[in-house]
């Protein structure tokens, strides 16, 4: 791709223009990250007077802790469930909208709205709906003889956070799928129709393979979202409970660091998370560019 080069007459101007962005990146991203790496090798006494350098002890202890392994496990369940549910529901909605001719636009607009809701608000919203004391959903479920209490039952809590987190992400996925579906040429679908493929066969043999780059991209984005961006939703609904049933890795970083004040362990956990993000991003760029094309 050929982009136009701009030549600045003043040598300092380009740097001046870059400075604000650089400052933000350094102050809010690089510096805290460096701090986290540094304090993940340290132990601080309860009063914050003394810090000792302890090499990898925080890390080794972390992977010996049953709570941490449980959290790893919970995060995996959570991320897979959220990714699967939000992607399949949004694909279904996108396919439905792409079949509408006139009202498609209105639906698209409405379906995008949840994305504009702040995560904590979304969490509170679901917390109200599923509140065992005053919520409408447990009341309705009760009518069918199903008792719901996410404050006591870990599985209920997991279902709740998965639903809330998926709901929030559906809008985003939906937009990408709608765009992906629009990029499949109509004539291909017509050719397949003439070639004797019914609507389902057309979808699975032509449309789905052709939007696979979108699907793969969304898969990585959704895993990222579920693992790192759902703090607000979890804090608003279950706060990681009950008994650590929804204590995902990200939530545990917060809980151990800010509530438990174990800065060393919390930092080590966030460094592990950083490593996971880096790996996922590398996979995304490498894989998407090379493998998923036709």
């Amino acid at each position, binding site marked *: 791709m050929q982009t136009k080069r701009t030549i600045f007459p003043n040598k300092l101007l380009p740097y001046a223009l870059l400075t604000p962005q650089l400052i933000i990146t350094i102050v809010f991203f690089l510096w805290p990250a460096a701090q986290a790496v540094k304090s993940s090798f340290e132990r601080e006494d309860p009063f914050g007077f003394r810090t000792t350098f302890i090499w990898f002890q925080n890390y080794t202890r972390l992977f010996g802790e049953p709570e941490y392994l449980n959290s790893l496990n919970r995060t995996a369940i959570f991320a897979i469930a959220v990714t699967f549910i939000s992607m399949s529901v949004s694909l279904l909605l996108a396919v439905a909208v792409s079949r509408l001719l006139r009202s498609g636009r209105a639906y698209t607009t409405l379906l995008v709205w949840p994305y504009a809701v702040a995560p904590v608000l979304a969490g509170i919203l679901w917390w109200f709906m599923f509140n065992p004391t005053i919520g409408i959903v447990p009341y309705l479920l009760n009518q069918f003889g199903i008792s719901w209490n996410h404050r006591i039952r870990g599985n209920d809590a997991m279902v709740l956070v998965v639903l809330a987190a998926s709901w929030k992400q559906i809008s985003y996925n939906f937009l990408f799928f709608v765009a992906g579906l629009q990029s499949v*040429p109509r*004539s*291909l679908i*017509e*050719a*397949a*129709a*003439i*070639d*004797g*493929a*019914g609507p389902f*066969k057309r979808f699975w*043999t*032509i449309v789905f*393979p*052709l939007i*696979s780059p979108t699907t793969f991209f969304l898969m990585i984005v959704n895993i990222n979202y579920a693992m790192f961006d759902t703090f607000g939703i979890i804090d608003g609904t279950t706060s990681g409970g009950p008994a650590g049933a929804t204590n995902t890795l990200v939530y545990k970083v917060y809980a151990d660091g800010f509530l438990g004040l174990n800065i060393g362990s919390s930092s080590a956990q966030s460094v592990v998370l950083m490593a996971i993000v880096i790996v996922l991003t590398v996979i995304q760029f490498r894989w998407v560019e090379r493998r998923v094309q*036709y």
Partner: protein
Amino acid sequence: MATIELSGIRKVYPGNVTAIHDLDLSVDDGELVVLVGPSGCGKSTLLRMVAGLETTTAGTVSIGGAVVNRLEPSDRDIAMVFQNYALYPHMTVRGNLEYGLKNRGTPRTLIDERVAEAARILEIAPFLERKPRQLSGGQRQRVAMGRAIVRQPKAFLFDEPLSNLDAKLRGQMRVEIRRLQRTLRTTSLYVTHDQLEAMTLADRLVVMNAGRIEQLGKPTELYERPASLFVAGFIGSPPMNFFDLEYLREKAGASLPTLSDDSDIIGIRPDSIVLADPQEPSIPLRGTVELIEPVGGESHLHLRLEGSDQLIIVETPGRPDAAEGTLLTAHLRARALHPFNRQSGLRTA
């Protein structure tokens, strides 16, 4: 092998836009009928209605004697070649050819046999394992044809299949489609906006304008005896020249043949105008040479007529002696005049 019968076909789009007005057309078994017309004349819509990709507002479409209006495209037993080829990009050439057969539950041995046969006919055997994006435009075009012929359908529908190719390849593929259709003798409906393609391919030619058939017949018939002003102007390149009858009468004197009373506009093809006196009844017109376009074996002279400011085109063999800017006399052969009525747009004699 089958006939295609269209009777009373009408297409009205939402918003009361009528694309096709009560049209009748029948394609005989093994015949290649070409639909030609300017963009927006309804030719593609008509083809898509035969394919079942568009609904028909009124009228019946029959293929092989059976009414197919309510059948899905897949149940009409037709194959279509699209303008952009519509090859499945994620499948190999073989996958593309097999897809329609597999969907219909054709046994494996028969699939292999048909694919091998199509690949041999179209000379695409070396590319069978490649993906469409690895092929050139001409090769993709062949694969698209192959996908149509492996199914051995009742009819082929071509939707401007050559318009994405460069001029040289278009010429080659045109000949190839003709040869293929002659060998297979599959009933075909072919849509194009290129009148040269239409003339050379068609057994019978249908000129469409604004959702109606202007004229239907053998290509030579349409060329020699256009039934309307529209057909006269559309078929033939360079296009026919038109004159006011009054203007010609003034110049012609006795050499103007007798014409019916309602004629008021006269057409003549560029190749019926000669520079040397033809020694037969003709109408001499004087004009200035504005432009000479040498196109190889012949040249096109653009002549600005004296006294009327009208520009006419003369097709003359070889290279004319005249230079641009010179004044010369052109002779319109009196027997090659086409009389029309301006109001109705129809031929008068």
